[in-house]
C-alpha cells in the first residue's frame, strides 16, 4: 500500500533523509493506517447512520404505497411513473433551477466582485467589512424568510413605504402575489443571506495567490479589471469549482426560506422540490411517493453537479498533486 512512503519536497528536521524503498519512522506526524482508521471510525459511523441509512431506506420505501401506519403495499415502479408525469414536481424543479442560476450569478458573482474590492488598497477596515458581510449567513433561514416577507409586505413593507416616501407609489406592487415575478422576489433574500459566506471562501483562496504576480501585471499596465479576470479568476479555479458545487447542492434542497415566505404560493408558483416532498408527506400522507420524490431530487442534483464538473475536470488534470 505504501502509506508510510511518500514524496517529500522539503526537508524536515524531524525525519531522516529519504532514501528509495526505506519506510519512514512512525511518529505523531505520520501515524499508522490503523490509527487513521480508528480516528475516522466515529465520523464514518455517524455519517452512515444519518445519511446513508436514510437514503437506502428512502429508496426502499419508494417502491411501496405507505400512508404512515401498518398498511404498506408493494407497487413496484408506479411511484416513479407517476413522478415523471407530475407537473407540480417538474415545475418545482424548474423553480429550483431558477433559484440556482440566480444564486450562482448573485452569490458567487457578487461575492467575487466584493472579494476583489476588498483586496484593493483603497478599502479601509477590511475585517469589519468581512464580519458584516458574513453576518447574515449566521442567521436562521426561518428568521430571514419572515423578516424579508415583512419587507415585501404590500401595506407596511419597507419597499413600498420607501417608494411612497419618494413619491413613486405607482411602482408599489404586491410583490409576493404575482406568480410571474415571485421567484425573483424569493431569490433575493437567499442571495442576500449567503453572499458573505462565498465572499469569505473566495477571499481565502485569493490570499494564497502570490503578490508578485500582481506587481508584474501592474508594471505591464494591467487595469484592476484585467487583473481580476486574467489573474485572479484562473488561479482560484479549484475553489470556484467547490463553491459552484456548494451553491448547486444548497439550492437544490432549499426549504426554510420558501416555506416561511410564501409556503409555495400563490398556488404552486414558488414551490420547490423539498417543500413538495414535505407537503406530500405530512399533508397528503403519501410517504411512498414522497420517498420516490426524494430519490428524484438526489438523482437530479447529482446529475447537475456532474454536468458542472465536466468543464472543470480539465482544470483539475493540470494541477495534480
Amino acid at each position, binding site marked *: 500500500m505504501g502509506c508510510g512512503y511518500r514524496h517529500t519536497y522539503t526537508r524536515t528536521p524531524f525525519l531522516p533523509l529519504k532514501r528509495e524503498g526505506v519506510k519512514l519512522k512512525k511518529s505523531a506526524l505520520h501515524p499508522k493506517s490503523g490509527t487513521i482508521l480508528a480516528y475516522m471510525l466515529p465520523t464514518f459511523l455517524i455519517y452512515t447512520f444519518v445519511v446513508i441509512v436514510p437514503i437506502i431506506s428512502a429508496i426502499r420505501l419508494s417502491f411501496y*404505497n405507505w400512508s404512515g401506519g401498518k398498511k404498506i403495499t408493494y407497487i413496484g415502479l408506479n411511484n416513479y411513473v407517476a413522478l415523471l408525469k407530475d407537473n407540480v414536481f417538474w415545475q418545482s424543479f424548474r423553480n429550483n433551477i431558477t433559484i440556482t442560476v440566480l444564486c450562482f450569478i448573485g452569490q458567487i458573482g457578487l461575492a467575487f466582485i466584493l472579494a476583489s474590492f476588498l483586496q484593493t488598497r483603497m478599502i479601509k477596515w477590511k475585517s469589519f467589512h468581512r464580519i458584516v458581510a458574513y453576518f447574515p449567513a449566521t442567521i436562521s433561514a426561518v428568521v430571514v424568510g419572515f423578516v424579508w416577507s415583512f419587507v415585501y409586505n404590500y401595506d407596511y413593507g419597507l419597499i413600498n413605504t420607501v417608494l411612497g416616501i419618494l413619491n413613486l407609489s405607482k411602482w408599489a406592487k404586491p410583490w409576493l402575489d404575482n406568480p410571474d415575478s415571485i421567484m425573483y422576489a424569493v431569490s433575493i433574500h437567499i442571495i442576500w443571506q449567503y453572499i458573505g459566506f462565498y465572499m469569505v471562501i473566495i477571499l481565502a483562496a485569493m490570499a494564497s495567490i502570490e503578490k508578485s504576480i500582481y506587481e508584474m501585471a501592474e508594471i505591464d499596465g494591467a487595469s484592476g479589471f484585467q487583473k481580476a479576470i486574467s489573474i485572479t479568476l484562473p488561479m482560484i479555479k479549484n475553489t470556484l469549482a467547490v463553491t459552484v458545487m456548494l451553491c448547486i447542492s444548497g439550492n437544490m434542497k432549499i426549504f426554510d426560506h420558501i416555506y416561511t415566505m410564501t409556503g409555495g404560493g*400563490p398556488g404552486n408558483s414558488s414551490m420547490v422540490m423539498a417543500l413538495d416532498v414535505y407537503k406530500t408527506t405530512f399533508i397528503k400522507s403519501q410517504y411512498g411517493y414522497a420517498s420516490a420524490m426524494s430519490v428524484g431530487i438526489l438523482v437530479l442534483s447529482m446529475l447537475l453537479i456532474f454536468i458542472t464538473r465536466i468543464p472543470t475536470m480539465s482544470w483539475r488534470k493540470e494541477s495534480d498533486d
Partner: protein
Amino acid sequence: MVLAVVLSVTFLFAACTSNPVTETSQTATSSISSQASSSQVSTPVELTMLGHQSRSVIGESAFATGFFAALDKFTADNPNIKVTYEGLDQTAYQTKITALGAADDMPDLFMLKGSWVSNFVDNGWAIDVTADLDADATWKDAYIKGGFDSVTRDGKIYGIPQESMTTSLVYYNSKMWADIGYSEFPTKWSDLQEAAKKFKAKGTTAFVMGNKANWPAESCWLSTLGDRVTGTDWTNSIINKKGAKFTDPDFVSALKTFQDFAKLGAFNVNINSIDDTEQKTVYFKKDAAAIVNGTWFISDMSSAPADVKADTKIALLPSVEGGKGDAKAASGGPAWFLSLSSKVTDDKHKVPALYNQYKELMQSVAATPIYDASMESAVIEAMNVGLQELLINKKTPEQLAAEIQKEQDIVDAK
C-alpha cells in the same frame, strides 16, 4: 379500567363548545365534573394527550378557555388520574401527530381533524367507540344532529366531537355599508356584486381575505358559496362517494362565481401574501368593509377598536340566483374530534351524559359540511392551492375542477 378513565375524560372535554359566552361553557363544565367525579378511580392512571390548543390563548379563545377549565377541574377532582397535555399550533400539530403515527407512538388521547379520519382509520390509529356511545343513548343524543358524520366510517364512530362552530360568517362594518346605501347586508348575490362594484369605485376593499395559508378561501368562503350553488346533496355525495364529481357543472359554476367575484376587485390585492392573522388588522383599521371568518373570530373581535366593535354585525353569505342551495345554511359543525388511540384496549364502563350548547344564530340555520372537515386531506390540499391561483385569475374553474377530481381519483384508487 384505563378505557373508562379515558372515556370520562373525553366526555368532560366534549362538553365545551366554542361559545362567545364563556359563562355558559363554565356552567356546563361544572355540571359535568360533578357527575364525572362520581366515577372515581382508585388506582393511579397516567394519560398522554396531544392537542392543538395552548394555554397561552386562554381568555382570547372561548374554546381554549372552556377546554382548559374542564381539564383543570377534571384533574383536581380526580387526583389519581394524571393527564399530561401537550399543546402545539395547528400546523406543527399536524406534522407531529403524523410523525408519531408513523413511529407507532401515538398519545392516548388526541385531537382529530375530520379530513384525516380515513387515513387514521386505515392505519388503525383511532379506535371505534360506537359501542360505548350506543350504550349510553342520552350521551349520544346530546350531540347535535349530524355531529358524528365526519368521524363515521362504515357505520363505526371513531371520535367524539369537541367543538361545534361555523366557518362562514360575514362580519361586516354596518356603518361602512350604510355609507354606500346598504342598511342591511345584501341577501341576493347580484346585490352583493353591485355593492362590491360601489366599494371599488370608492377605492375601499369590500372584503379582506388573508389566504397565505390557503385554507380561508376554501373553508370560509367556498364551503358555503359552493353549497349555495350545488346544494348540500352534491356535497354529501362527494363525501360519501355516491357518484358526484368535482367536474360536475354545478361545482364548476360555483368556482366561476367565486372567480367572477374576485375579478370585480372585491378582495384586497395582496390576498395570497397575508395570512389569517394579518387580515384581522386590515378589518380593524377599516381598510376593508367586511371579512368572512368563522365562529372563532367572535373572540378575536374582543380586541378590536371600539368603533369597529360597535359597528360590526354578523350575516350569512347571500343566496345565489339559480343555485340549488338553501340560503339559510352555513358551513359548520364539528371539525375537530377527540379520539382514543388504538393502544387503549381496556373494558367498558358506564359514564355520565353531557349536553351541548347551541348558538342563537345556529338555531335557525342549517349546518352544511365544511369541506376541509369532511373531504380527504390530499383533495383539500389540491383545492386550497388551486384556489389561490383561481382568485388571481391564473387558473380557469374548469382546470381547477379537473385537478381536484384527479386528486380524488388517486385517493379513491388506494
